């Protein structure tokens, strides 16, 4: 069974809640390693050693990527036996986060190496920004976005069910990395305004996750759908006519 709207909304509320908490952690550092994590995030964006910044990377991933996972989480939930649902969701999340952590380690190591040879400069940020725009418009990016919409069959029993949930999480994570790695890296290139940039990137990535698959080709992509949703919902809430005949 599928298309259970109530379930989808519950999942959406949960992932938004988790994302919100991760954002609070990032912004205030109020958790068990508060000062450490807050420092780590600053270090992360300042391109420090990966070993010190991976926990911060993890929180970043949770904060920025969780809202994009509503649809695959619903898929896992509905395709699993009731008593296995929590376990399947956990394995999906483990697979998803694992590949992002691996990607994070690579990105951070590259950045660390880079920072040895190149000092922070607006030029680097500008180059990164230009590259991000090119990647954002590329057919490769669209292909990765499309692949995120593929929800394959999950086996239901025993270790096979566990393996499939984990595999689905890893696959989904890989295609997410393909579509989002540049956007995720971009805030780190900035010398200031990191959190604002991360917020914008989160907004953009969430909007992209709502878009339908499209033919891979060069095109300008942006948060069109999320803007449209906000606009149309605003009209509905404020009682205006939604469309004209």
């Amino acid at each position, binding site marked *: 069974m599928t298309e259970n709207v109530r379930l989808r909304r519950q999942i959406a509320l949960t992932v938004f809640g988790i994302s919100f908490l991760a954002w609070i952690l990032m912004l205030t550092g109020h958790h068990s390693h508060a000062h450490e994590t807050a420092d780590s995030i600053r270090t992360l964006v300042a391109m420090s050693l990966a070993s010190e910044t991976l926990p911060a990377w993890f929180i970043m991933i949770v904060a920025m990527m969780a809202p994009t996972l509503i649809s695959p989480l619903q898929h896992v939930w509905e395709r699993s036996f009731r008593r296995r649902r929590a376990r399947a969701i956990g394995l999906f999340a483990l697979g998803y986060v694992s590949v992002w952590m691996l990607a994070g380690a690579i990105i951070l190591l590259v950045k660390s190496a880079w920072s040895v040879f190149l000092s922070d400069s607006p030029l680097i940020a500008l180059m990164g920004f230009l590259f991000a725009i090119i990647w954002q418009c590329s057919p490769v990016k669209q292909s990765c976005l*499309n692949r995120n919409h593929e929800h394959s069959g*999950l086996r239901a029993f025993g270790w096979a069910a566990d393996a499939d949930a984990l595999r689905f999480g890893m696959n989904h994570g890989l295609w997410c990395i393909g579509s989002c790695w540049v956007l995720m890296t971009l805030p780190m290139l900035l010398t200031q305004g990191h959190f604002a940039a991360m917020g914008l990137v989160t907004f953009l990535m969430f909007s992209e996750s709502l878009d339908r698959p499209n033919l891979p080709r060069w095109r300008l992509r942006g948060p069109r759908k999320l803007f449209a949703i906000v606009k149309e919902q605003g009209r509905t809430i404020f009682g205006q006519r939604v469309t004209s005949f």
Partner: protein
Amino acid sequence: MANYTRSNAWNKGGTFANDDLLWYAKGVGIMQSRALNDPNSWWFFAAIHGEKISFTSGYPGWGFIPPVPIVPTSPLPPESDREIYWNQCQHRSWFFLPWHRGYLIALEMQVREAIIGLGGPATWALPYWDYLGPGDEYRIPPAFVQQKLPDGSANPLYVTARYGPRSDGNIFVSIPPVSSVSMSNDIYTGSNLNTPWPGFGGPRTEFWHSGGLSGNLEENPHNHVHVDVGGSSPDGRIGGLMSNPDLAALDPIFYLHHCNIDRMWAVWNADGNANPTSSSWLAGPAGMGERKFIMPKPGAVPWVYTPADVNSLDTLDYIYESATVQVTAIRRTFSKRMKQLGVAMPEGVPMAIVEDIHNTSELVGAHDGALRIDSSGVRASVKLDNQVRNKMVSTLVTASVINVPDRVYLQLENVRGTRDANKLNIYVNGIAAGCVPLFGMHQASLKDGEHGGSGLMLQVEITDIIDTLHMENALDSDSLDVRIIPDRSIPKDSEISVGRISIYREGRM
């Protein structure tokens, strides 16, 4: 009083003695004479539903369609027009019915304009093909299979790639499995005692797009008729136009088929069944940040509409000649089910629950692993989870008017393949469970298609079979035996795959 009356295409034997058909043919001919990039052309309108113009690796690319008609693939309209108008069709969604209603109105305007230009009647309206009607009406009206009009000119209603259910050019609708059973539903979206999931009009679709199930009317008769009429060529090399959503609207019979679907919706409403009243439905997908419903009126004037605008025939300027749908199949009523389960039905208990009671469902069992279906079909053991099966059985044992027993569905997940012109007959423990058409499978299997390559999800309700097995004490088994048999041979290079067969219960948790 409405200006336009949509009449039965089988009037006057469905031949060109029926003026509605003769003028339709002439109007279609005018539209076909226009270029692909003209929003008033037949080809542009077909592309509004769906197109495969840039698909260059063979059929179903438009460039590979055998004439007649000779389908153009150029000149393309500007990209902005293509993005606004083309590939709009709404399937597997609660917007299926309202989008197609507006589409019919727009096409009708275009054809009427052409007819008036030829000196025809200003009140011309689309006829409908009531394939569930009496006598020979299950056959395509004869006017569509003649190669010439009465004046000896080519018949624009004739199409080569229309092969029928036996691939022999004999075009008819197979009854059964085609039926009017969805007319007994009494809820548009959801499920209740009289309505299996996802409801008469289709599943609610929100911000998150995913390939879901067809609504009950969309599934049967709509999807079935598409596959029956289109069929596949005698050598099995290609499917008929109607079999594929991205080619279907090139065939003039498409609009008569959808006219009948629209009529069935109107009859369903006239019988006292309500459409959704939520703003999410009334505003259409545009209210969720998706594309607007938009059609070119004659003169390429854009017409933007929403479900609210086409919600009721009373607000539109047409009526149907017949407001009845022949009953060809009867769903087992709740009362009958309870009697079969041995539950005494007290007098005076209201049996009509018209609100959606589908709140939750649960996986009962599954066949682990993908299956390939070739011409001989496939057999699979669908393992049941003991705990959930016992829960399901307990609802049958304790069934009462208050404790409504479970409903049970068999689902085929991630059904992928290249050939839409097939139906799959499904048997559970040797009992026929249903037949599912594969309309839309090719598109749903494309990696860059709307479903991201996930394939189709198909469903048949097997509550009757589960009840029977329960009454025969045969439900204590660890598995169900499921056989899937295609209704026609599948070429070697066109195998169908099923990601998983699963059984779901819907009811008290």
